């Protein structure tokens, strides 16, 4: 059943919220008061409840099934975290209320920072970035600030492997750098010769994801760090895949200068259909003083927040600026703290081991029916390419859409770009063996069907989803980005 848009219900005079009656005093806004209506429909509560519940049922979710999106770390989201994040003492406090009235919030931020620094063996963490990409900005801006402070503003070249997430080059550019791609070698890692060849006086940094987006640990990472440091540049590590090594390997030991957490994904904030995220960023000794405002410090027995430059300078810091109005994603901090306390040092280590174990098990089970892109073991995700679909008439996209009909969300497709028709599978530590087995059975059967010539089953997929395959080209060519009343543009666009 199609669910109409809220704008198509003729409920423009209704409201689902009762208020005490206004006193009806005339406003003091004068000519700035609005006289016309906005055209926002209102729904009674029963109508709203049903609309959004019905719509929700058209979504897939980790609570419904395995969500093998490579590089996305779709893991279980404990409901304890949701409960604690909603404690009024955390959720219903204002970022600018007197600091004496939010000591518990500061304490939580301080504790979380301690965990993050300990897990990475890094001396500083900037807590305010709002998401992973925002954390990248934070790290690269700290690098830029450090270069400027050294008087080496001319260093503008940033080395980025071709397998990197798109955010890396986009971030580099937003910090005024330009991107120089480094190729991968035959075993899916940075080509060391190419890397060495690119070092030079104008190099600012390398941005490296580790484990990388092929699901592999950059085994030369320590050498890369050392060479980059010798060349006068910095080492930015993209922490998107930190789930593979959290509690088991500390980036500080690898020579990293800056790394953002995707705090939400590694430490289990639900992805919420696209956020919110949180991107605390650890910084090395060389970059620490440039960390952005504001930050929390312990001052004797109490905590306080350093909010302005003068105060920061008095603390020996030299912030590159402020990234956001307030001081970060408290809601995600609470969830991460709850997750971390629940796991402890032992549980975090076990979680990353299980994540790696599950991925390798998928790889082992499917290596003979699908085509792994690289030999050997993987870290937290297993990369396949489309060679096993050769001459079947089935593309990676078709194969992925056919998974929907089997009750699964597809894996990450066509990424990383370094292999053809990539399929990147990350089961995470949240899946039981039985669940991973069922998943592998399904993929095995699908691969068999593709090879057996059941092409239609793939090209017509999905057949059992809330929608058939959607016309994305049309959406982009004739963009309809909002509802408009039928008499006008929208109808014309139809």
């Amino acid at each position: 059943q199609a669910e109409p848009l809220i704008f198509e219900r003729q409920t423009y005079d209704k409201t689902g919220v009762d208020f005490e009656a206004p006193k009806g005093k005339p406003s003091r806004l004068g000519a700035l008061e609005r006289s016309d209506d906005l055209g926002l429909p209102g729904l009674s509560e029963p109508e709203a409840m049903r609309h959004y519940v019905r719509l929700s049922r058209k979504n897939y979710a980790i609570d419904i099934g395995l969500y093998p999106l490579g590089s996305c770390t779709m893991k279980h989201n404990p409901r304890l975290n949701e409960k604690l994040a909603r404690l009024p003492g955390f959720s219903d406090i204002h970022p600018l209320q007197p600091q004496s009235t939010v000591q518990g919030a500061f304490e939580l931020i301080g504790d979380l920072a301690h965990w993050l620094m300990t897990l990475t063996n890094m001396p500083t963490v900037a807590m305010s970035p709002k998401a992973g990409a925002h954390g990248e900005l934070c790290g690269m801006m700290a690098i830029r600030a450090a270069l400027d402070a050294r008087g080496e503003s001319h260093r503008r070249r940033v080395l980025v492997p071709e397998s990197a997430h798109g955010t890396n080059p986009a971030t580099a550019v937003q910090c005024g750098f330009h991107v120089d791609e480094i190729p991968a070698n035959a075993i899916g890692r940075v080509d060391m010769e190419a890397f060495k060849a690119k070092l030079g006086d104008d190099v600012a940094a390398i941005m490296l994801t580790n484990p990388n987006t092929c699901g592999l640990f950059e085994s030369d990472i320590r050498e890369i760090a050392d060479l980059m440091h010798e060349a006068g540049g910095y080492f930015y590590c993209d922490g998107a895949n930190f789930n593979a090594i959290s509690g088991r390997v500390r980036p500080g030991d690898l020579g990293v200068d800056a790394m953002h957490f995707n705090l939400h994904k590694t430490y289990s904030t639900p992805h919420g259909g696209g956020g919110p995220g949180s991107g605390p960023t650890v910084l090395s000794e060389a970059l620490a003083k440039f960390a952005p405002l504001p930050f929390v410090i312990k001052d004797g027995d109490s905590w306080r927040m350093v909010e302005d430059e003068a105060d920061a300078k008095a603390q020996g810091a030299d912030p590159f600026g402020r990234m956001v109005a307030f001081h970060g994603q408290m809601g995600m901090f609470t969830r991460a703290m709850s997750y971390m306390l629940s796991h402890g040092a032992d549980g975090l280590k076990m979680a990353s081991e299980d994540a790696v174990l599950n991925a390798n098990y998928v790889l082992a089970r499917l290596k003979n029916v699908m085509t792994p892109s690289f030999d050997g073991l993987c870290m937290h995700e297993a990369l396949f390419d489309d060679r096993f679909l050769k001459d079947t008439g089935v593309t990676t996209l078709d194969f992925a859409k056919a998974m929907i009909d089997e009750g699964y969300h597809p894996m990450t497709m066509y990424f990383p770009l370094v292999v053809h028709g990539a399929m990147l599978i990350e089961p995470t530590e949240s899946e039981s063996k039985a669940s991973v087995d069922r998943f592998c059975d399904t993929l095995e059967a699908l691969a068999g069907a593709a090879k057996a010539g059941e092409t239609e089953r793939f090209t017509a997929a999905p057949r059992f989803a809330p929608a058939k395959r959607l016309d994305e080209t049309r959406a982009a060519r004739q963009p309809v980005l909002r509802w408009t009343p039928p008499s006008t543009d929208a109808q014309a666009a139809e």
Partner: protein
Amino acid sequence: MRYLPLTDADRAEMLDTIGVDFVDALFEDVPKKVRLDGPVDLPLHKSEMEVERLLTKMSRKNIAASEAPFFVGAGAYKHHIPASVDHLIQRSEYLTSYTPYQPEISQGTLQTLFEFQTQVALLTGMEVANASMYDGSTACGEAVLMAYRITKRSKAILSGNLHPHYAAATHTLAKYMDIEIRDDAAKPGGLDDIAADIPDDVACVVVQNPDVFGQVHDLEPIAKAAHEKGALLIAVFTEAVSLGLMKTPGAMGADIVVGEGQSIGVGLQFGGPHVGLFACRGDRNFIRNLPGRLAGETVDADGRRGFVLTLSTREQHIRRDKATSNICTNSGLMTLAWTIHMSLLGDTGLRTMAQLSHEKACDLADRLSALSGVELVTGGFFNEFTLRLPKNAADVVEALADKGVLGGVPASRLYPGKGYDDLLIVAATETNSESDLDAFEAALKEVL
């Protein structure tokens, strides 16, 4: 370990299938000397009950807005959110789904985003809106970058009455893009005379309305002046509820409208997560230069209406170093909360909520400014105003807190060292009862 489903027997069997003897063998690509043997130096795992006890204890060291007469604003506002909103956003299908890259099994998220975009466009009086930014301040910075891309001019003017944190976030985003920013001086309570001084080479003028001191402005003359110089007007708001009662920025001529949506559906959250709203004109050039995600309408293979993420060639995951922004994860679940709350309110409810907030603020301003030595600095305002006190405002706020009243934001906290030590920014909303107002008045009287 309650969150880890594998048993030791499972692990052994799986290692066997993989063909290695120990888990550690899976980490063989990690240089031996950086592999940790034991756990890091942090406490071991705790039961749910222990975690709950610890964090609950921590949370009780804070004073929640609902536990005190509460008048703190300056960028985040305490409004009442219906219980159904939080219930709905906790539906597993919304809460635990990824970004809707697979539209066939994400129509729930996609349709709500489409509804959200439409609501934001209607609320701001603009033609299109994106699927959200992190918050109002980063939306403001991104708007300046967008104006720079559209106009190909590299100068921007920020009104002095723009929330200083918004200005700072904008500076940070623009800093390494070689955009030159002119910061005008703040004028508490004054009307911005920004219209009178817009040079020819400016990409955009950024004006907040109501401004950080609560003052409301007619944006029309500023829009007109900016447009005459080929510049764009970026209108900013931090209190989305103000649009329930005021002329839309679109109607007053803004080209891009950005703001903080936290008042609707989201709550205070100690500053995050919030939800950045971003709307603009519908010109092709504007749409092409929008940062962030967009949901769009299309049809499926059966010809039925459906929704997808679209125009992603603007975005980092396709466009890489040519992207309009590096933003990726945005405020997904908060847009859902926002759109549900807004759907419940509708025009009627939003207007009432705005009216009540305005009335409470007017009442409060009258009562407080009648106190001896207190002066109302703001002229026209919506639900926030600035008082000049006979004492240091920061000290007054602490003294009020000691009496259990959270009485606003001292302007010096936002503008340190600018000589505003006697200014207090005070906000009221529909959540303030008469007894809250009484308590504030009485407490202020005592501490002055």
